[in-house]
């Protein structure tokens, strides 16, 4: 075991570097990904080391970026596209929905689009409008895409490499408020990634209730579990890691053991991931459930100005409140 203490951002950066070293067909594309290293410095140093042809500062047009990335895939490349912020992926929505998700099926398997679309997402950083959104449900609803998100530096490092290695298109969500969190990362290449790209991880095991969450909310839920433990409540925390496909067995096993579940995410609840999880859990754990599956998420309003975000986003209190309501049911 060779470990390094890395931030989540550095984990991503190292993961990108490893993938670029392993395969000359891997290219990075996006706005400001070159000299600047991206506004979050995730691609820092990579243009210097791999050249302008492999780390491409594109014109300011997201449909153009994803659209040309498709062409590069068709020519045998494996582009990793950076969308600068969550709220700027929509100009590329058409290319993603009409083309990226459907090309393999449309071509009866002849064509592949091994593309990764990186999206720094979520709030909590005091940003202006369009810089704090959680739009994963749009892509998770879209057949033909894979959608994943990391919650710690180790996953950042390994999942990035797995996503790039995937022959299917992957939407890779990066929890931007956790970019600077540090953690030990096992970078032992011979041992490989500890988990598959689409496996959920049980981050903590408990007996009373299961928190199902992902990305930036994993930390919040682990804190909630800590706080709950102090009150004698034992929580399981499942980090989904993959939103599409969902790792159903891991989720369902956890909920069956606890009989209660609360889903936590930053996105609005109406038709958010929590809707799918609640629908799935009630269907598969009907006789195990002692209370309805509850959802804690952003309210069903556009992401508010940042002075509201602390109360808009699920926080420790709101998670605990839902836990209490479930236990009291």
């Amino acid at each position, binding site marked *: 075991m060779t470990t390094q203490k890395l931030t989540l951002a550095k984990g991503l950066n190292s993961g990108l570097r490893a993938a670029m070293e392993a395969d000359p067909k891997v290219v990075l594309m996006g706005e400001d990904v070159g000299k600047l290293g991206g506004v979050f410095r995730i691609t820092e140093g990579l243009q210097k080391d791999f050249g302008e042809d492999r780390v491409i500062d594109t014109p300011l047009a997201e449909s153009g970026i994803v659209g040309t990335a498709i*062409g590069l895939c*068709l*020519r045998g*490349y494996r582009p990793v596209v950076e969308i600068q912020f969550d709220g700027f992926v929509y100009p590329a929505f058409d290319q993603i929905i009409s083309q990226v998700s459907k090309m393999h*099926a449309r071509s009866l398997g002849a*064509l592949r689009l091994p593309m990764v679309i990186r999206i720094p997402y979520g709030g909590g950083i005091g940003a202006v409008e369009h810089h704090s959104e959680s739009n994963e449900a749009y892509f998770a609803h879209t057949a033909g895409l894979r959608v994943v998100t990391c919650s710690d530096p180790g996953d950042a490092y390994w999942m990035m490499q797995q996503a790039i290695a995937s022959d299917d298109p992957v939407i890779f969500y990066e929890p931007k408020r956790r970019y600077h969190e540090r953690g030990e990362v096992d970078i032992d290449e011979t041992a490989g990634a500890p988990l598959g790209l689409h496996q959920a991880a049980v981050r903590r095991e408990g007996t009373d209730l299961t928190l199902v969450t992902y990305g930036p909310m994993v930390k919040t839920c682990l804190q909630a579990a800590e706080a709950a433990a102090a009150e004698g409540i034992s929580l399981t925390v499942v980090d989904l890691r993959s939103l599409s496909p*969902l790792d159903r067995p891991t989720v369902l096993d956890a909920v069956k053991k606890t009989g209660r579940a609360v889903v936590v995410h930053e996105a609005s609840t109406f038709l958010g991931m929590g809707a799918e999880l609640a629908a799935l859990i009630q269907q598969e754990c009907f006789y195990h459930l002692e209370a309805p599956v509850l959802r804690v998420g952003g309210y069903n309003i556009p992401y508010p100005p940042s002075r509201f975000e602390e109360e808009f986003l699920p926080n420790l209190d709101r998670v605990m409140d839902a836990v209490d309501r479930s236990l009291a049911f």
Partner: protein
Amino acid sequence: MSDEPTVRHHESVVTPAGEHDITDGGPDMVQFLDAEGNRLETNESNAPYAEIVEALTAEDGRAMYRDLVLVRRVDAEGHALQRQGELGLWPSLLGQEAAQVGAGRAMRPQDYAFPGYREHGVAWCKGVPPENLLGMFRGVNNGGWDSNENNFHLYTIVIGNQMLHATGYAMGIQRDGAVGTGDESRDAAVMAFTGDGGTAQGDYNEALVFAGVANAPVVFFVQNNQWAISEPNYKQFRIPPYLRARGFGFPGVRVDGNDVLASYAVSKAAMDAARAGQGPTLIEAFTYRMGAHTTSDDPTKYRIAAEVDIWREKDPIKRMRGFMEKNGHADQEFFDAVDAEADEIAARIRKACQEMPNPELPTMFDNIYVDEHPVVAAERDEFVAYHASFEGAGH
């Protein structure tokens, strides 16, 4: 190419709708054959391409003519098959054969084409068996050929999308070092096809930006057939499509899309330049959609027959045949042989269409992902089990 029209500041340049002449391509248009097939004099517009046309042999001309006739026949058969209920839809290329054959023949095998949905003639030139085009219009698949076999991408229905794919593919060619090496079998370029309406889309214009910035080896080939379903040119742009290139910093040329020699020569020059590393070109082929937009459309709602009559006079096949006859490049035997071949192909297509099996139902779950996907796998299994439950049940 002629001088670019001047756009003066603070004088209105709007052309009232009525003034858009949709039957005359104007002096900038590159043309070699008139409507009767007479070889035009060299003029400012066609001069840069004259050498290419001069180099063509009678044999080349016959091959082009054959393509024109066969492609029209393929198209007619597609149309007929739709009328008879064998296909759900057919977008006819009638009238646009010369534009497409000229472009298609300017490509080398290693060049890649990104079509819209009407490029049956380009498909033909790239060697895609026409039967393969039918599947998507019959509803048995969404694209029935392996693009990489003939370097002819799947049809793209969402207007504009493929322009960016073409540009990205061209950027890949650059990264492969397959531009400007001088090696004829190595250097490659891309041709991207769209219509007059397609020029309004954001994706189209972004493709011009990306291609310009990257100096990518891509040729944008716009077939201006005067109509985007029911909307005439003046509802899509203020000045003709070939002039759009001036705003992006690379050459734009208008060519007579009903003159196969002109279409070929302009396309070849642009593709040669692209392969040589000189970057993108935009070509507007000035032509006409003789038929309906698709078999679902009723053009009597929005256009007058007189317009179609004018364009019938400019027919691309008649014109090429006139040229060949005038110059003794082919005899009646040749023309008869081509027609006979067309009959054969039509019969072959018809047979292939009628015999095309319905796909096995569970195959709809195939190839959604490259790697196994649990949701899809589970649904396929359920689907199979569910359908098995009916078997023998007389349901």
